[in-house]
């Protein structure tokens, strides 16, 4: 495999440096590196980050291929600078057994645009009644470590306790979609002044907070790990903060959209803004930003949720929950966190790459930019500003709330395992990527064991 020399990249800490990539790995990081037969790419000061890792992606395959497939979803990932995505389990059939998670894993390997790490369901069919085949998913080729019924809450406290205890056997974590179902029956948007004005059924903050409060207590009692998906309220932040202060093993994620948008966006009944958990108030947005900055919230995860247009161009009550997010995540986080001075680029690398890899149990293979590590890299032009159009969305669906907004930052190159998945802002064609990923796999049989500490 030939090498690539990225000349003049700005590392997360601001240092200007060259990066030499060979055989899928970062061979050298330093100044004035020799090309030594490698192709030289002058990146002219572009910022480089370790390839982004998304702990919360809906790839929709199998079952909902009209919305997204593993191939199109990982193309969206490449467009957004992601090199690893965790595929949520709410497919059809549900990823609640080894067969489905291995199928999703296989589709990811075929695609080559990103490493696809399947998430396993906690309960059979997301039914909330009996435990799924947790152990066989963990020991399958997909090596599942994150378990989630996302889209639905594991609301039965006994089942949640058992799941927390059981997955600790293999170092797993339960990623909880915190939503008390009885308190959110028929809910359409955040419960507050806006929902009252619009006549839409409210989704009260307490329905999220009550579950998180219960779950951190269960995690403490069972000495197990809990991960809270898409935390959305100021009250949830306080619960997680106090749980962490007590030493409870809890981690939490926030989506880009909850860092930027509020429930006022529902005012025109445009269902692109309908999402679960719902967009909250400005006070919640400010609390979430602060919590991400101070580490109470560990990571950003997209909750990329593609839907076909007919599921959004309809009455609000009938519209699907969710918005696409992979392509725009970095821009939104730059807008909400970097341009407000709350996080620097080292912080961005932490919350969008390293920590997601740690929580997901793939930090041996992803989330670090260092010599000797796999060459998953993203190069961005943080100074760019452009208006988002559907042309910028590389996935199958266009249900983005940011269309027409001017956003900062632009992903220029995405490199996975030493090959381009996006180059000069253009997604590399599927056959080229597919050939590159096969070449990588052929030359790294058992790659996982070859990784050095770097």
């Amino acid at each position: 495999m030939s090498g690539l020399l990225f000349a003049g990249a700005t590392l997360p800490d601001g240092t200007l440096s060259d990066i030499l990539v060979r055989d899928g790995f970062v061979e050298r990081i330093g100044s004035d590196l020799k090309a030594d037969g490698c192709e030289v790419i002058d990146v002219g000061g572009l910022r480089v980050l370790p390839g982004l890792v998304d702990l919360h992606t809906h790839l929709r395959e199998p079952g909902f291929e009209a919305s997204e497939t593993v191939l199109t979803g990982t193309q969206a990932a490449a467009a957004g600078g992601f090199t690893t995505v965790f595929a949520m389990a709410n497919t059809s059939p549900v990823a609640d057994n080894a067969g489905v998670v291995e199928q999703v894993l296989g589709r990811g390997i075929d695609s080559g645009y990103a490493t696809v790490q399947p998430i396993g369901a906690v309960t059979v069919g997301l039914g909330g009644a009996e435990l799924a085949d947790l152990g066989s998913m963990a020991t399958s080729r997909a090596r599942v470590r994150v378990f989630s019924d996302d889209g639905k809450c594991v609301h039965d406290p006994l089942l949640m306790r058992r799941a927390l205890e059981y997955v600790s056997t293999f170092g797993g974590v339960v990623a909880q979609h915190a939503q008390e179902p009885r308190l959110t029956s028929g809910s359409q948007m955040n419960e507050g002044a806006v929902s009252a004005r619009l006549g839409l059924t409210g989704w009260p903050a307490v329905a999220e907070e009550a579950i998180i409060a219960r779950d951190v207590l269960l995690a403490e009692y069972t000495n197990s790990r809990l991960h809270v998906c898409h935390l959305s309220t100021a009250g949830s932040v306080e619960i997680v903060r106090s749980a962490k202060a007590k030493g409870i093993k809890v981690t939490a994620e926030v989506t880009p959209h909850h860092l930027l948008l509020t429930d006022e966006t529902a005012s025109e009944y445009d269902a692109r803004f309908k999402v679960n958990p719902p967009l909250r108030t400005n006070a919640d947005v400010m609390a979430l930003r602060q919590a991400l900055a101070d580490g109470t919230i560990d990571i950003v995860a997209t909750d990329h949720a593609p839907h076909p247009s007919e599921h959004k161009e309809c009455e609000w009550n009938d519209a699907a929950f969710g918005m696409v997010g992979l392509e725009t995540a970095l821009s939104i986080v730059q807008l909400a966190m970097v341009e407000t001075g709350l996080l620097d680029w080292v912080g961005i690398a932490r919350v969008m790459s390293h920590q997601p890899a740690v929580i997901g149990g793939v930090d041996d293979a992803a989330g670090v930019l260092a010599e000797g590590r796999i060459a998953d890299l993203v190069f961005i032009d943080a100074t760019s500003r452009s208006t988002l159009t559907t042309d910028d969305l590389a996935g199958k669906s266009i249900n983005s709330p940011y269309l027409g907004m001017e956003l900062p930052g632009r992903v220029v190159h995405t490199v996975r395992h030493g090959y381009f998945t996006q180059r000069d802002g253009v997604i590399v064609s599927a056959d080229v990527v597919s050939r590159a990923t096969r070449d990588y796999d052929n030359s790294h049989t058992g790659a996982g064991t070859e990784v050095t500490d770097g």
Partner: protein
Amino acid sequence: MRHLLSTADLARDEAIGLLDSSEDMATTADRAHKKLPALRGLTIVNLFFEDSTRTRISFEVAEKRLSADVINFAAKGSSVSKGESLKDTAQTLTAMGVDAVVIRHGASGAAYQLANRGWIDVPVVNAGDGTHEHPTQALLDAYTIRKRVHGSSSRGKGLDGLRVTIVGDIAHSRVARSNAWLLTTLGAEVTMVAPPTLLPHARESFPVVMESDLDAVLATNPDAVMMLRIQKERMHHAFFPSEREFSQLWGLTAERFARLSERTLVMHPGPMNRGLEICSEAADSPQSTVIEQVANGVFVRMAVLYSVLTGSEA
């Protein structure tokens, strides 16, 4: 006025203009020949995705009095019941040359979407959308209050200084929402009364006072008391324990009615649950405006349709 979607959008002079125009429409009701040629040659579709015989007939009478051609579209048995989208239904109908759409829909925001999404390009009148708004109901309520209070000198007047109490399922009521904005815009002081389970969680959402003690509010001698219809199925979702208890605490019972001043108007948008939210003594009393509200509904809807279709007041 291009559309009528919400009373929150109505400025005071615009609202008074519509009420004055309704007065003009009312004068035609006393003539032997009631029909005006104002909308001759124009076609209006009544797009009713929710059953509502009263509102639909009221609009239909208003349209016919203005000589418009009327198409009634009920969702049941139509392509909608086969899964056609709101967008496709509206586009199909307007492709046939409809000049205005009156829409009643179970989903909040449906009228707003129809008017603003670029799907169609004709005036839209909201005849009730989910638990959001029912603007023509609020206009007819305002008209009814103004007429009772100011009689033949109503023109040009608002509802300044009047105190209106609205009682019942505020949280789920499109009538309450539309009245909250309109009556306040017209200068009235509005108090809403319900058990806390049936008030909006965010009390600051509306420019009104929210209370739960009906007797205390009635003791202040409001100028009008509007009772809202209680949906009996709310009981099953733990909003209140029983009909009997609701009636005792928040119903306009004979005993409460007897304590009201004879000047206090008793209003109800209908259909009434007699014996639940309102007693027959009150509903059938001279203070009751229930029948007038129905009659006035036609005049107000004539004024609204005339305004959106001709861009002027009568």
